[in-house]
């Protein structure tokens, strides 16, 4: 009787994968902070960080070290447990999204096919949604526990913003799900490898999803919850040292992983464009293919990260009523319209209306 026997090979394989994915997303988030400062500087005709190491490449390490050495202040009238819980949740939920993203097809090592996805759950995209909505708790709890009106205002803004934009985001995805007929991210990538990328079938859905992704990650123009000049930092104004670092870091991890989700859903995931993957895999073998696919995936993600930063340094912040107008009066009807049109086209298609 070995009902609960653990397959140690799978266990180690997944453990290694988890460690690699988590550390990779942390390192990428680290260097996103550097890239953000550099891109901001370049767009504003400045030079940006260039003192620590060649081209300032060690700047993120210096920043991290600085945050670690700062005094850790917990306000006297704050709720201590929640105060520490806030950034922890923010960081945790940010990292957890990486679990369902397929980083590549598979590699063949030690006579085993190892899938480059931590968990191919069949409700992948729902999982992402669940975790993203949990992410707002980090901000809410942090803002609430700070016992400070500006923090609370920031937290409330974040909560209402994320709730409003999640609706449009979900509905824009429903159209995509109707096309794909699956919730598993891996299957969706497989579909896009053989056919068109979903961006060409769902351009409007992608646009809505993109705007909502900006809102969900609290990036400018939707960074109302941490608006420095209105709320002195919003939900993290009471935070210092590495707890603040966690909040700032979680934003970049979120950005990276939401880019990954967008690439997976709309840009073919690890699909290499203009290449027939099935013939290539026969010529160069599974492992090299996985490397190439990972590279393609990474390049697409970097493009999205650049887009995130480029938009941040171009567009000013929304006013709160504009934010709500955009979410409820424009994006939500647009997403509904998109869903209806997609549904109608699928229906016509299934009834042999070819056009």
């Amino acid at each position, binding site marked *: 009787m070995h009902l609960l026997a653990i397959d140690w090979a799978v266990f180690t394989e997944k453990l290694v994968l988890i460690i690699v994915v988590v550390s990779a997303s942390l390192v990428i988030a680290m260097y996103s902070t550097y890239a953000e400062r550099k891109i901001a500087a*370049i*767009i504003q005709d400045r*030079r940006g960080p260039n003192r620590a190491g060649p081209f300032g490449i060690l700047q993120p390490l210096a920043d991290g070290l600085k945050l670690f050495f700062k005094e850790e202040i917990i306000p006297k009238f704050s709720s201590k447990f929640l105060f520490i819980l806030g950034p922890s949740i923010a960081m945790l939920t940010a990292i957890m999204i990486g679990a369902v993203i397929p980083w590549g097809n598979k590699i063949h090592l030690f006579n085993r096919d190892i899938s480059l996805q931590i968990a191919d759950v069949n409700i992948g995209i729902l999982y992402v949604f669940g975790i993203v909505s949990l992410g707002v708790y980090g901000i809410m709890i942090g803002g609430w526990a700070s016992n400070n009106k500006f923090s609370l205002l920031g937290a409330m803004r974040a909560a209402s913003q994320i709730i409003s934009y999640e609706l449009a985001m979900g509905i824009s995805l429903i159209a995509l799900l109707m096309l794909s007929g699956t919730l598993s991210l891996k299957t969706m990538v497989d579909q896009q490898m053989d056919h068109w990328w979903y961006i060409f079938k769902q351009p409007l859905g992608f646009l809505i999803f993109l705007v909502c992704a900006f809102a969900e990650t609290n990036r400018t123009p939707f960074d109302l919850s941490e608006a420095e000049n209105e709320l002195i930092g919003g939900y993290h104004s009471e935070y210092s040292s590495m707890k603040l670092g966690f909040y700032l870091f979680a934003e970049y991890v979120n950005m990276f992983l939401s880019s990954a989700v967008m690439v997976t859903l709309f840009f073919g995931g690890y699909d290499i464009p203009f290449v027939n993957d099935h013939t290539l895999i026969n010529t160069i073998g599974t492992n090299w293919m996985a490397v190439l696919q990972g590279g393609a995936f990474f390049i697409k993600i970097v493009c999205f990260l650049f887009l995130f930063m*480029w938009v941040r340094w*171009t567009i000013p912040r929304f006013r709160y009523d504009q934010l709500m107008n955009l979410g409820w009066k424009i994006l939500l009807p647009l997403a509904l319209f998109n869903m209806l049109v997609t549904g109608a086209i699928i229906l016509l298609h299934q009834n042999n209306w070819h056009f």
Partner: protein
Amino acid sequence: MQALTNRAKPVSRKKMNLWESMYLPEILRGMFITFKHIFRKKVTINYPEQTRPFSPVFRGLQILNRDEEGRENCTACGLCAVACPAEAITMEAAERQPGEEHLYREEKYAAKYEINMLRCIFCGLCEEACPKDAVYLSETFAPANYQRKGFIYGKKDLLIPHPKEDPEAYAKAKGSRKLHPEGHGNEK
């Protein structure tokens, strides 16, 4: 009111047309503008590695000059101290002893010569007052220091390097200006 420059643009308060209120095209326009800035040449000078050239009339730290044989010019007459509006200069005179002719050009010299760089306003009046061409304003400025006393520059800080023993440092301290009487115009 008349504008000082013609760069000011009045704010347009007109109602947005449909194209503008669609917002996205305008965002793309803005993003195109910021994208163009990526290829702009940066105006910043990477300071410690690159320095901006000083203008020929730049007035920096004082130096005490030597003549061609490396003898100090200063005779401690005190005219620079009198001329100094900030009262930054103090000195003590001493008489040249026999055997010191290779050190000092004339019979009297400055045993102590101090300039308080915190008081100095770098006006250059000392340079103009000096009848012996001993004080010049060079092309450097005072580096930062942790203590006030570090800004009181004595003779060893001010004296120009020896032109024969260390010609390179001498040329560097001398900079691009003419330190010798000819062409200076104060020789009256």
